[in-house]
């Protein structure tokens, strides 16, 4: 099969790999019809996540048709499914608590040592996201092997729902939703969201659906800010305005009740101290550039909530721990418990309460995936979301 393959920092290519096959009893093989490039794929592309190896197949946002099932799979051939990016067994303690991204079993045992060293407990399995999270071949490919296929993938019964409408159930829509849920929004709240990328925009949309009085989205790409405005949000361009002052003024001198960092470890331009962080990231110390998060913590009101859907992988310098303590903030973070939200969100898509298609800027054949990465990286204003279609003629 053909698949987008990592060769080195900012070097990805579509190569030929052996087709996947059923390995474990609960597996299924999916023929991919649509797969997206995620903002977090750019962290892999840029080489800031460790343990990505030459030959790895990337991609964790995908959907398609079931073509083969293991003896314990509950899927049937021909079914159309969206696959969550988190690989979860469904039967461990954490899966039982619906903390699917903390699954105890999905990261192969022999792959756990590194993340256990880094974080104290090993990470769970994720598709196409380095050997820290299992080294699972990803879905920017013609075919993918899906473990625990009896509990992960959601079946799309309604063939009239386009891929474009449901594909984002695989990651960014539940991620945005959980980010808003973690912000513990109540009626009348003002919520500030850093980053008008796909997750930030979905978090903003979710916050409004959860009853936020006002959502303020912060970025510097005019086109992305326009998308946020289209959702009914206020926006701040941080190149034009002093963000913290603007937020204070827009909230009557109180500060936002909740803040969401949808930028993550490669945040740029949000403050001066990230020059230092960039230098360290470059020499391999692995300090995350967390300037968006630092700014969010200073901007939020006393006793406010900090939600972090943005991806971080290492350590952060000059973290404003004092502000966290003295302001009495609470923080919630984490990889998304995708399986927990898929059904509810599919219902909201079907009912027309949530639209996901406004994000999509480009659809490309899989063969042009490398170009998609390049443009998504270098022309972020124009390339808001790239979908790869393995079946599409080049």
């Amino acid at each position, binding site marked *: 099969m053909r698949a987008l393959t990592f060769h080195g920092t900012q070097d990805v290519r579509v190569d030929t790999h052996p087709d996947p096959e059923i390995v474990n009893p609960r597996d299924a093989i999916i023929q991919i019809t649509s797969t997206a490039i995620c903002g977090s794929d750019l962290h892999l592309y840029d080489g800031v996540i460790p343990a990505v190896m030459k030959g790895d197949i990337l991609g964790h946002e995908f959907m398609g048709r079931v073509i083969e099932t293991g003896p314990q799979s509950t899927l049937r051939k021909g079914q159309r499914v969206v696959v969550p990016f988190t690989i979860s067994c469904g039967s461990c303690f954490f899966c039982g608590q619906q903390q699917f991204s903390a699954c105890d*079993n999905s990261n192969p*045992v022999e792959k756990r*040592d590194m993340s256990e060293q880094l974080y104290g407990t090993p990470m769970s399995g994720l598709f196409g996201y380095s050997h820290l999270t299992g080294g699972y071949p990803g879905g920017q490919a013609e075919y993918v092997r899906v473990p625990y296929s009896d509990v992960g993938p959601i079946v799309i019964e309604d063939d009239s729902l386009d891929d474009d409408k449901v594909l984002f159930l695989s990651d960014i829509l539940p991620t945005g939703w959980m980010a808003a849920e973690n912000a513990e929004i109540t009626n009348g709240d003002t919520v500030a969201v850093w980053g008008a990328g796909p997750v930030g925009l979905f978090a903003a949309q979710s916050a409004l659906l959860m009853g936020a009085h006002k959502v303020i989205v912060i970025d510097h790409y005019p086109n992305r800010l326009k998308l946020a405005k289209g959702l009914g949000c206020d926006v701040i361009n941080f190149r034009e305005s002093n963000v913290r002052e603007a937020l204070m003024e827009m909230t009557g001198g109180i500060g936002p009740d909740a803040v969401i960092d949808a930028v993550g470890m490669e945040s740029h331009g949000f403050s001066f101290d990230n020059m230092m962080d960039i230098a360290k990231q470059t020499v391999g110390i692995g300090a995350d550039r967390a300037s968006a998060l630092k700014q969010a913590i200073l901007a939020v009101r006393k006793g406010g909530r900090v939600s972090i859907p943005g991806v971080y992988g290492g350590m952060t310098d000059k973290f404003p721990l004092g502000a966290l303590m003295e302001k009495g903030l609470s923080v919630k973070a984490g990889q998304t418990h995708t399986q927990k939200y898929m059904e509810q969100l599919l219902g909201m898509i079907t009912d027309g309460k949530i639209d996901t298609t406004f994000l999509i800027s480009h659809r490309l054949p899989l063969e042009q995936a490398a170009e998609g990465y390049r443009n998504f990286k270098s022309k972020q204003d124009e390339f808001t979301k790239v979908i790869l279609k393995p079946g599409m003629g080049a």
Partner: protein
Amino acid sequence: MRKTSQSPSAGVPSTGVIAAGLGLLAVAGVAAVAATRPRKPPHGGEDSAPGRTARRSSFGDYTVVGKTVTISKPSRAELYAFWRDFTNLPAFMENLDSVELTGGKQSRWTIKAPGGTVTVDSEIAQEREGELIAWRSVEGSEIDTEGRVTFRDAPGGRGTQVALIVAYKAPFGTAGRLVAKLFQREPNIQARRDLRRFKSLMETGEIATSDNRLNIEEAA
């Protein structure tokens, strides 16, 4: 693994040290009690940490490793029963090639080591239904080793805490060198990985792998 020149146990008969200090059986009856007992550090005072978490991993001539996992399902009785059938062990113990029941409480374990295999004749030294299985190598085995697995209810209805403790003394000669190679790299990693594979197999019916094909060599 560290040398034990600083060990207070130097010169003390090693089996006694293990039983008292690590809760591993040397003499069957004593061990069951000692296994649950917190360690008393030589400098006095109290320490609730289990003996197997001591900063040193060698006690006398023995190397001791031990780990605990919590397994949510199936029941404690079923977990015990699966383990008690030693022919099931190679399904999750990476270095175990096969286990052959040789009659009574005895079995023959064939262990994979770099460059060959090592055979251990082992007998069940102690067992308590649903709680504990302890085994040790019989006289004349290629390695002097003992192990025990205990099962107890986890708090909050979280299932069963399964603890595996293994001690071994590598002899001289070829087998000794193989075993030393096998265990000395990271003695705790093997116990931890084996236990986690046991947990995965029990909870999910399979052991997770990111391999895309059954025969990965063929795929390469």
